[in-house]
């Protein structure tokens, strides 16, 4: 997919990456925005963000993706940045069950701080470590179904499904937004600080479950 000049876009969507420490959030971000991966990527302190523009249904969407620190301790800081998010990737590590167990807490946290219609995708990362798998795809699917979220398994290392996961979230945001014909104006950058882009009522968010390919 072609990477576009940063300022040439129709919509700006804010998406947050959340999940426990060491599940690979920063590498998902760097894989999607810069096509880079590092086994030694440092822990994220507070919040960081990166952007990438991409075409979704004939519109240029600029995704502003906020990467957050995973440790509980930073929750107060990071949750302040959930404000205005219209999409979220809830990331766990398929080789560490404890990170999957945290998903419920992260989801609760997210829903407390964002519009209830935020598009959420559950992401089981590190799918390349097949021999170390500790969370079954079925369990994750069941959780996603129960919580009405999307689901994918990814590998930032092998670059598997990363693009698809982000694009799916952006597409869903766009689709919900178009359906509601939201009045966000011609210049989405003009949104006042802190205002959430409403993505429609809960019923509008169709649930699509994708099984991971790994």
């Amino acid at each position: 997919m072609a990477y576009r000049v940063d300022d040439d876009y129709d919509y700006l969507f804010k998406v947050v990456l959340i999940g426990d420490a060491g599940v690979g959030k920063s590498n998902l971000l760097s894989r999607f925005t810069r096509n880079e991966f590092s086994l030694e990527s440092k822990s994220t302190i507070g919040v960081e963000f990166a952007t990438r523009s991409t075409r979704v249904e004939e519109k240029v969407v600029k995704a502003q993706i906020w990467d957050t620190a995973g440790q509980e301790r930073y929750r107060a800081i990071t949750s302040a940045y959930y404000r205005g998010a219209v999409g979220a990737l809830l990331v766990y590590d398929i080789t560490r069950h404890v990170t999957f167990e945290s998903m419920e807490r992260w989801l609760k946290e997210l829903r407390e701080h964002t519009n209830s219609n935020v598009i959420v995708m559950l992401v089981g990362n590190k799918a390349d470590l097949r021999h170390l798998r500790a969370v079954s795809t079925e369990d994750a699917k069941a959780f996603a179904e129960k919580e009405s979220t999307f689901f994918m398994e990814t590998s930032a290392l092998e670059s598997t499904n990363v693009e698809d996961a982000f694009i799916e979230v952006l597409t869903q945001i766009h689709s919900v937004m178009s359906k509601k014909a939201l009045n966000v104006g011609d210049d989405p950058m003009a949104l006042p600080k802190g205002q959430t882009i409403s993505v429609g009522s809960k019923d509008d968010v169709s649930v699509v479950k994708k099984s991971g390919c790994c």
Partner: protein
Amino acid sequence: MVTCWNSYTTERHSLKSPWSRKKRRQPLSRQSWNGLFTIEGRFRDGGIKFLKKARSGGIEPSIRADVWPFLLGVYDLNSSEEERNAVQLQKRNIYEDLRRQCQLLSSHCYQGNMLMNIDKINGEARYDFNEDAYSAANSEDGSPRLSLSMEGSDVEDQPVYDRTPDSASRNSDDEVDDEEECEITHFDAFLAETDSSDSESSYEVLKRIPKLNPWPTNSPSSKPETFSRTVEDYATWQRIIRVDAIRADPEWVACSPAQASVSLELSKQAAEAVDLKNYDHLEPCMIRHASRLVSVLEAYAAYDPEIGYCQGMSDLLSPILTVMEDDHDAFWCFVGFMRKARHNFRLDEIGIRRQLAIVSRIIRSKDAHLYRHLEKLQAEDCFFVYRMVLVLFRRELTFQQTVCLWEVMWADQAAIRAGIENSASCRMRLRAPPTNDLLLYAIAACVLQRRKLILEKYSTMDEIMRECNSMSGQLDVWRLLDDAHDLVVTLHDKV
């Protein structure tokens, strides 16, 4: 003991600012360092000349391992060599006790699903801010700072976890040598005094624990009246410590050839000793470094359970491990560093918020125009420098630059601890008095260096944050220090 710094001359040269008009002072050399001491190893002048030199020119890398324990308050500036040897031995023993604690905890954490809490006793923190490290080390009064309680189905398998040496059956004069009989249910951790600038916090003067300890007598079944401190427990810290240890920055390797040349076999042994896994992609020296990070950080989490482990702390420890070759020396230097830095990692965020507020005040006092612009962008809380404050520029500067900055900062703090901040002879030619907040002035200087960009190009807080998060490799540490000192001179009375 002394780390080899082959690349010193060229490294130092490259740190020199191409723009700096001020002539950089020479760093404290081995020769002048040795000349500062009397025959019994005491500073001739109480350390004034040492601190003055460290503040203005930094320290020659080859003597860092000798100098840092003084800068970080491990050793008193008035101590003799003999006294220091005694302190070192005592501290070494305490560190080893802490490690035994950690190993015991690890085996419990990994064996079962036992819920482990590091409890607070009646809300009293175990961090004792009264004690001076040096005098405490010489204190006979062994008192517990941390007790670990285990709750779980098979707790009866474990020996008396809620027992402390000062329970009613004993008194604090008892010799604290009963690790074997009760499998180390306590340790005697003394603490250095903390900086008092966060005294609005709950860390008011805390008396030693024994008098306050409400725990029942030596009945193994009775549980102390405790409450779980947070959702984060020791097992969580252990996990995150390992996650962070294996992704430590390898930049230090070039600076420490001695540590860089460790064999694979030795490094694997080190990893096994702390139950480190998933390191196959690492070089032997990084495996060993990761293992050392785990050892010291776990010990710290047990030593200071109020803070435990928070991501970012490994960034602060890594350079210390590079300079200090023995874990116990590194641990106590880290404790000295954390005396102030620990407030950054507090759960209640009081420390970090206070520091951001100071950066904000410095900017407001120095540049009202820029401050108004920040207000307009709702960025006057200076949240965009969060990472710089939290890990003290470690992510923005190179390894060498970071330690240069930290040394100058530590020297300021040491001067204040020693009560010589007002001594005219401790002042630099810039006339900048020592401050506890030098780092914050440096951060403000860093923002002010970008004022034009911020005023003309940035219309949201996000953009400023992105700018601040992408400064890596673009900063000149001595220029930053010069600017910071200029700010201190003009503003220290106002901020």
